[in-house]
């Protein structure tokens, strides 16, 4: 069933006709070409597809595009402003918070969400904040360090 939606993605408003069953992840990747949002498991588990919806993190593989109608979405492509890396991105680079990079877009969105709510998290709070994001490479160690570095620089 076709539905018209208007969604603001990374500050730009888009109006599109989508099937009711189209997932937000597919809308972002296929309709808008924003392939920074990764699909890992497609079963709500890995968090690679995490985006912000009105500033709240969500797994875009577990959200319909029609549910985003009228809302504002931030993907990894929207984290940097005016060519300046977001402090979370800069900290991931600084601390080598990634290896293959597959989990990284979702991981950075989750860290951004955490620091937005809790600017001074403890290590335990950081690990809890990224509890919905799986990484197969890093063992999380440098991701936690990157979150700590980002917290200091914000």
């Amino acid at each position, binding site marked *: 069933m076709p539905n018209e939606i208007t969604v603001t993605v990374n500050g730009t408003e888009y109006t599109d006709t989508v099937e009711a069953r189209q997932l937000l992840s597919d809308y972002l990747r296929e309709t808008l070409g924003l392939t920074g949002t990764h699909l890992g498991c497609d079963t709500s588990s890995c*968090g690679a597809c995490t985006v912000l919806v009105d500033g709240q*993190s969500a797994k875009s593989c577990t959200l319909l595009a029609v549910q985003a109608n009228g809302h504002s979405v931030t993907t990894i492509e929207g984290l940097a402003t005016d060519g300046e890396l977001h402090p979370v991105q800069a900290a991931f680079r600084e601390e080598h918070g990634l290896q293959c990079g597959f989990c990284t877009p979702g991981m950075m969105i989750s860290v951004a969400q*955490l620091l937005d709510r809790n600017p001074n998290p403890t290590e335990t709070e950081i690990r809890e904040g990224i509890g919905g994001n799986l990484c197969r490479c890093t063992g999380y160690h440098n991701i936690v360090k990157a979150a700590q570095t980002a917290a200091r620089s914000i």
Partner: protein
Amino acid sequence: MVTNNFEYFAPESFDEAAQLLAKYRDTAKILAGGQSLLPIMKLRLAAPEVLIDLSHVPELSEISSNGDGLTIGSMATYYELSQSAVVQKAAPAIAEAAGQVADVQVRNRGTIGGSLSHSDPAGDMPAVFLALNGAAVARTRRGTREIASDRFFVDLLTTALRPTEIMTQIKIPVATGKTGSAYSKFENKASHYAIAGVAAQVTLGSDGTVTAARVAVTGVSSKSTRAKRTERILIGKEPTASVIRRASDRAAAELQDDLTEDIHASGEYRSYLATVIAERAITAAVERAR
């Protein structure tokens, strides 16, 4: 993975939602946070023809409390519950459990109404709802009824809600006297679902003995269930460590014919964990009651 095709509605009032549900009845499903429904639909274990999204009905997210107790809109998210000062004051176990559900992303979208309506065998909210003696407000176009928590969970993924009923609110009666509540769980490290979870509410009399106790277990059997033997051992006694231990030992006693067995844990292990977690939850509830 995509779901089957369906028609999507986003009603802006309760009446409009109820009318749609009355029209499409069991071919339709209510969409709340979608954190259980969408994964199931993607796996094609469910294929509703119509989805009715409640997220545009603002009054369904309201949280308030008065002399009778706490009223929580069914669309209140776990995140909102975990942060709400009103909930923390009136029913700390709800805030405590909401903060332990799943992960940040799921807590941002998942709702208390969705959790109770889904009746997941490992859901956290169902156990708390039972322990706090809550009631669900179920409404249709024509009328409203309250379903007591003790009658709400019928079987695996099955509740007393009728196909045309929408859960609009959850009511938690005001706790009188020296009452404390708590929720504790042992979780699956990947999904965070409870392998065993226990919610407890304990009321102490002026002499320090337990005058009322409600204890509920989740994750261990097909649905959240009260541990009535545990409650009976507590009531009338001073809740010393050894009394709590003895009561907790019975936490899964009534579930022995219905134990969940899966790749994560055997029934025997779940049963044992329930006794350990019950001890933690009851001890915390007693401390808060004092």
